[in-house]
């Protein structure tokens, strides 16, 4: 990668609105520990003392655990080309902390009595030690692979409570897991933590048509909720590339943003209540459905974005906006970065309440997409432009919105803010525009790696997880982090919930 290209990626990454679909699968073997376990061929090395990463290159897309892969070459500027077989001497750790930490000795090791006890609580079927465990041990980019020997699938809050009470008494570390679509290794074990996956808690408990308040269990998949609400005439206030696999509990635990953040705001505003199970098994019922509740401290905000380190979210009560029928999308070209910024300001002013998304990409990014994927075309071909912007409006009146958007676009073109643009005429064209933008997320791992190697500022858009646990001081003051550590110790004194993540190890007593 040339410096110029990388500079562009840094600028791009900073403006990148959250998407969590990445299509590159890379695993790296730890430096200096390649010898043990033999060849670099398939299979995990179930060593409890290090994160094992192997290198495989293919483009894949997770959807409910089903990988559809297509052969494609990595962009050539990234690492000199496509390499299927992993040469033993190219070991690299992916900027992760895992290679530098040891498994804490204060956590117990799983034994057969524990497994028997869990089988008593959950029944035989939901205590998993077969091949599903392998998938649960790895995040979906295969950057982080743990070595847990037990996967639990609770079906109710009561079961979660009993599991945690037991684990707390035994001092067994646990990892709460949802759709496992995170990008920072927060949803998989680092060593042999017990995985508690919420997939079976997928009931919609209630939906109030008047207020639009949805109460559901944490394991509901986002796309299922979107379909359910679609029939009622409502939408979820968040939308991510990973919606086919991610669960609402995980979205809340990571304070997911998504493509509609600019319109509906963050989960801190839309989540009205939570039910959380604490480390000692206590069930914290904060599942209110009031729009405004000023009685005491608003504890749910602590758990939103806590990434599973303060408690396991079991139920969510969320405000959903009504579904608006008129959606318009424009794909525009700008000459320079400054115009993009001015365009954003103008869009907010002229489009006002109907603006629902504003996304940005540069010409290099566009080239990467066009060269590496089939079935996509540049809407503004054949001219190459420097920057591309995607604007979406959502409103109630088709013709009124279209007129408003056209007026804004024509005005921007006349004033030179945009040099060219197209307006989608039907839903297919609209999806084509979105596909161009969503697919771009596959660049993210390259950008992060480069940025972190050069001590660039980390953006916490995708959460902290394992990847950035020790880097939290870049964005938060020491006093703030100290208070976070105190809260963590108060709520989870034995630190069994998702250890080694979120907070820096210097403040946690892992050894």
């Amino acid at each position: 990668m040339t410096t110029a290209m990388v500079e562009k990626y840094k600028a791009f990454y900073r403006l990148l609105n959250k998407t969590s679909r990445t299509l590159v699968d890379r695993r790296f073997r730890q430096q200096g520990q390649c010898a043990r376990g033999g060849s670099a061929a398939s299979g995990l090395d179930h060593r409890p003392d290090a994160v094992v990463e192997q290198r495989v290159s293919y483009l894949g897309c997770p959807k409910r655990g089903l990988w559809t892969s297509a052969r494609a070459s990595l962009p050539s500027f990234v690492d000199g080309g496509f390499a299927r077989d992993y040469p033993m001497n190219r070991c690299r750790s992916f900027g992760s902390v895992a290679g530098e930490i040891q498994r804490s000795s204060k956590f117990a090791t799983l034994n057969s009595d524990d497994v028997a006890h869990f089988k008593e609580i959950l029944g035989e079927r939901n205590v998993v030690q077969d091949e599903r465990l392998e998938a649960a041990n790895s995040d979906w980019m295969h950057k982080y692979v743990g070595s847990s020997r037990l996967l639990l699938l609770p079906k109710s809050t009561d079961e979660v409570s009993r599991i945690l009470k037991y684990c707390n008494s035994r001092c067994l570390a646990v990892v709460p897991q949802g759709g496992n679509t995170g990008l920072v290794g927060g949803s998989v074990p680092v060593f042999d933590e017990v995985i508690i996956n919420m997939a079976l808690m997928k009931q919609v408990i209630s939906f109030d048509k008047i207020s639009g308040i949805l109460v559901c269990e944490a394991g509901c998949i986002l796309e299922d909720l979107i379909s359910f609400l679609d029939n009622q005439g409502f939408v979820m206030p968040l939308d991510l590339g990973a919606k086919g696999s991610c669960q609402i509990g995980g979205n809340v635990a990571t304070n997911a943003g998504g493509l509609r953040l600019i319109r509906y705001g963050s989960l801190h505003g839309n989540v009205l209540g939570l039910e959380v199970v604490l480390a000692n098994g206590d069930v914290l019922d904060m599942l209110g459905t009031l729009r405004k509740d000023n009685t005491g401290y608003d504890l749910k905000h602590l758990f939103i974005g806590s990434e599973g380190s303060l408690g396991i979210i079991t139920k969510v009560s969320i405000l959903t906006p009504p579904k608006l029928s008129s959606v318009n999308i424009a794909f525009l070209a700008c000459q320079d970065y400054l115009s993009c910024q001015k365009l954003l300001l103008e869009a907010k002013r002229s489009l006002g309440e109907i603006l629902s998304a504003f996304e940005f990409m540069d010409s290099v990014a566009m080239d990467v997409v066009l060269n590496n994927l089939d079935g996509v075309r540049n809407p503004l071909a054949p001219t190459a432009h420097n920057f591309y912007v995607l604007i979406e409006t959502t409103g109630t009146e088709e013709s009124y919105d279209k007129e408003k958007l056209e007026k804004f676009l024509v005005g921007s073109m006349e004033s030179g803010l945009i040099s060219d643009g197209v307006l989608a005429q039907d839903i297919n064209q609209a999806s084509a525009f979105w596909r161009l933008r969503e697919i771009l997320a596959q660049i993210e791992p390259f950008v992060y790696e480069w940025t972190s190697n050069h001590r660039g500022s980390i953006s916490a858009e995708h959460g902290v997880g394992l990847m950035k646990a020790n880097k939290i001081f870049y964005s938060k003051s020491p006093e703030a982090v100290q208070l976070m550590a105190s809260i963590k110790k108060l709520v989870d004194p034995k630190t069994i919930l998702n250890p080694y993540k979120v907070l820096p190890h210097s403040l946690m007593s892992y050894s």
Partner: protein
Amino acid sequence: MKIMVAVKRVIDYAVKIRVKADKSGVETQNVKMSMNPFCEIALEEALRIKEAGLASEVVAVTMGPKQSIDTLRTGLAMGADRGIHVEATGDLFPLAVAKLFKALVEIEKPGLIILGKQAIDNDCNQTGQMVAGLLGWPQGTFASKVVLDKEKQEVMVDREVDGGLETLCLNLPAVITTDLRLNQPRYATLPNIMKAKSKPVKKYTPEELNVATNSDLEVVEVTEPPKRKAGVLVSSVDELIDKLKNEAHVI
């Protein structure tokens, strides 16, 4: 040579449609409407012929209620030179549309008419053929390739038929209906959208064109197809045979 292209405003292809509770039709309130995908392909083909210098003008024609003008605007934004809107409320069945087309052809005198092979709302696949029949013109339907020869005043059309591809040579004037693989329609660019605002649109009514739009057909009922029943697990081969024989009646 003038080319007339038919465009229809239909429910967007990607929308999940619902049948109205009274079974009189499909829910169209608050549902996204767009140009019929095959009409987009038809218009794209006409524009390419014009850009190749083989035609002088592309006229987009739509028939329907007031809101159909939106579809016409899309057509103009893609590059059509003029628009014609035949404003008619109530259902327009293919025969009525074909008769209206015949009346317009007598006014406009185009050398080529291009339509989509069918509309995605009624899937009739009749209008193009009926227009050709009423005018007595040759027709090339399900076109996957169109090559115009201006000098010889003919057009070679590759048709997608069940057995493969059939190539026809038609004398102009002719009627062509387009199939999916003919081309990939262009996007409506902003400069063209701006230009479209000043392009003329002529309005007609069926009465002005002396066409009766009442139909011999009446839609009696619209229902959803029956939902797929869940499969049944059988415990033995004997049970399977028994079910195949006595329940499904296939053996």
